[in-house]
């Protein structure tokens, strides 16, 4: 009995601990790679910008690692039953970093005026929006023309950052001098940007959430060389290596150091998904049996373990398991060389060589292509690796001058935002390496993709996406390789760093350093 009691007290203490033990103060040094081109998130949305500016700017919602919406500038929200009206109730007493009050007018200006002009990805979603109105200073209403299921995922910081109306209204957005000193509502204020060296953010003392942020300041450090970044972490100069800042084979060494933790979380919203385009138009890859043979020939589990040091997950189909509406009810292509050979024999493959275009993003991708070539060679497919630079890769994939080509893209939480664009016929268009590059053309599925995007009930959408995934995996539109995982490496005494689906991008808001 005594024993039990003691345990109970211990458990209670452990559960209670985080509630009052969050130490405040301290500074965090995070690597940013490469140096962002600018910090005005409404104008520039590439990776490094999102990472730094995600502390300065905010959006209506945040998303946890299961991609469920969480309050941010909006404290609550409702969606009408017909899926057409989205009503957001904003937090009160929120101030811009320059002291001006934040109101619903800022939201309307950002979404309806500013971002419509500057943000191509959001514009595609805003095409479904009929009106954006502010009935009072703390309420914003989005009314849609037709239901658009993924719309609730469009309120992320990098997707719909809220910018200050009083600074930008009526100005030339791209050339506004205020772009150099970004003003947001976020937990950290911009202080100084020493080009080529660091970006310094300081605590927003007036932040509207009590007790947040815990940190006094955040330094984003620019270190151009991967090996130098690893050394900077080893020597304690930086505390956090965001995903992709060091080479894969350096990760086990760094992760093995004392007081170093790693996490694969924080990429759920992006869910980077890697595959090989298989040219559906011409050559051996135009034959479905050949494409299936490619899938069976590859030992993708081995590639994940060796090329990616075990980080990530073998992809089962077009939708990442981290994205909403993922279905595993599909044909699973295990490593089965015999089956691959049988399929090749059935189609009468005559040994025509196929060209393989690796992604020119460094060693890992080159090794990956070599492993694929070896696997395909083992079942009798002759593969020549093309070698190219980034410009050449863009040019060749965009103009369909390839047989097989590596790529990876973000999924943005919903198949209608980040998946269907690669498989529907209306996205077959020369000149872009991000659309339906493989030339997969299946009118029946096109209708289902379109339908699934506009259904209101998640169950109905799930049913359609399940059908789509099953059929497209049988067709092997492209060779799905892997759900990429870019582990974040950090000192263990940095707590609550990665709590959302966009990870470091808005991580410092809740982070604190244990003393």
């Amino acid at each position: 009995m005594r024993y039990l009691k003691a345990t109970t007290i211990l458990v209670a203490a452990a559960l209670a601990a985080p509630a009052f033990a969050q130490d405040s103060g301290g500074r965090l040094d995070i690597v940013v790679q490469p140096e962002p081109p600018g910090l005005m998130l409404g104008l520039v949305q590439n990776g490094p910008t999102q990472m730094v500016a995600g502390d300065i700017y905010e959006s209506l919602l945040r998303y946890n690692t299961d991609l469920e919406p969480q309050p941010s500038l909006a404290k609550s929200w409702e969606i009408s039953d017909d899926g057409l009206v989205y009503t957001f109730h904003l937090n009160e007493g929120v101030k811009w970093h320059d002291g001006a009050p934040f109101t619903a007018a800022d939201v309307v200006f950002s979404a309806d005026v500013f971002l419509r002009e500057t943000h191509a990805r959001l514009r595609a979603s805003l095409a479904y929006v009929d009106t954006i109105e502010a009935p009072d200073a703390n309420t914003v209403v989005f009314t849609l023309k037709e239901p658009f299921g993924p719309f609730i995922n469009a309120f992320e910081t990098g997707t719909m950052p809220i910018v200050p109306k009083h600074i930008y209204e009526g100005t030339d957005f791209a050339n506004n001098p205020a772009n150099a000193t970004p003003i947001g509502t976020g937990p950290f204020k911009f202080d100084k940007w020493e080009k080529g060296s660091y970006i310094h953010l300081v605590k927003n003392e007036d932040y509207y959430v009590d007790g947040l942020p815990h940190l006094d300041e955040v330094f984003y450090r620019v270190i151009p060389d991967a090996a130098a970044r690893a050394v900077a972490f080893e020597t304690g100069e930086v505390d956090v290596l965001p995903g992709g800042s060091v080479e894969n084979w350096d990760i086990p060494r760094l992760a093995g150091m004392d007081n170093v933790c790693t996490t694969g979380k924080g990429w759920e919203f992006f869910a980077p998904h890697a595959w090989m385009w298989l040219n559906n138009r011409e050559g051996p890859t135009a034959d479905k049996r050949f494409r299936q043979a490619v899938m069976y020939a590859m030992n993708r589990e081995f590639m994940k373990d060796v090329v990616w040091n075990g980080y990530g997950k073998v992809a089962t189909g077009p939708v990442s398991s981290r994205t909403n509406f993922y279905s595993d009810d599909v044909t699973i292509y295990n490593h089965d060389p015999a089956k691959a050979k049988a399929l090749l024999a059935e189609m009468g493959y005559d040994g025509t060589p196929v060209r393989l275009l690796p992604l020119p993003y460094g060693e890992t991708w080159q090794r990956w292509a070599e492993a694929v070539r070896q696997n395909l060679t083992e079942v009798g497919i002759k593969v020549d690796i093309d070698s190219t630079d980034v410009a050449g890769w863009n040019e060749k994939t965009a103009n369909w001058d390839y047989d097989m080509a590596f790529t990876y893209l973000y999924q943005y939480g919903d198949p209608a935002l980040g998946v269907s664009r690669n498989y529907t016929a209306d996205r077959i268009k020369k000149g872009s390496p991000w659309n339906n590059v493989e030339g997969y053309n299946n009118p029946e599925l096109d209708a289902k993709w379109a339908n699934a995007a506009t259904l209101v009930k998640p169950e109905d959408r799930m049913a359609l996406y399940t059908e789509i995934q099953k059929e497209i995996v049988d067709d092997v539109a492209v060779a799905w390789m892997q759900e990429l995982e870019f582990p974040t490496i950090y000192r263990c005494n940095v707590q609550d760093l990665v709590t959302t689906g966009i990870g470091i991008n808005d991580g410092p808001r809740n982070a604190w350093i244990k003393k």
Partner: protein
Amino acid sequence: MWKRFRTNIGAMIGVGILLAVILIALCAPLIYPHGPWQMVQRPFLPPMSVDGLPLGTDTLGRNVAAQLAYGAQVSLLVGLVSTIVALLIGVPLGAVAGFYGNWVDEGAMRFTEFFQTIPNFALAIVLVAIFEPSLASITLAIAIVSWPPVARLVRAEVMSVRKREFVDAARLAGLSRPKILMTQVLPNTVSPIIVMASLMVATAILLESSLSFLGLGDPNAMSWGYMIGAARTVIRTSWWLSFFPGIAIVLTVLALNLIGEGLNDALNPHLSRKGRA
């Protein structure tokens, strides 16, 4: 001549090493029938840790020994072929320039200088980048950057030989000018060309390795430079991946240089004695 060459210990060591490398290159498909790209074991196995893998495995678990053997093929092939191509360009150009003189000489030499003023390696990189890396384009690029010294050497030799009496005699005997060049003059310039060629093979191997190291190698051919380039990022944890191909390059280039030296001594005994005094 062979007698003189044979007494040169350094040269004989060079021949020994080169023969060994050639033997390994020729036998590679017999010893490792599955090629250099096959993933045979766990990655990053150190040398001697597993039977049958004396040199360990690389980042993908491929046999380093097999890679070395196949790399020898590529290095020797590129070295040899590019040198032959360079000779095919340089020798005729230099010979014609030196023999006919006047505006032919002027034109040929200005053309040669045009190539000589561009740094070798930079030009090779540009050429390979334009043609897209493949064994053929790399070989061609190396040949294009290495022929100018050949042309200048042959020109100088031809100029000195064509003033000799036996050339006048041949002319008096009624031989045509092209015939004199081909049968009387050129054969007398062969020895310096041979010496130079042996050194050029060594330079070509180094150039190919450097290109591969920079990622401009043929992605479908295993080469020593590629091995070092791929191992660069893991040099702190897996030294053997860059060490063995590095040794292979050093030994092969050293062997070729020793042979070149030996040939030089054997073919130009006067020069060598003077040089050593």
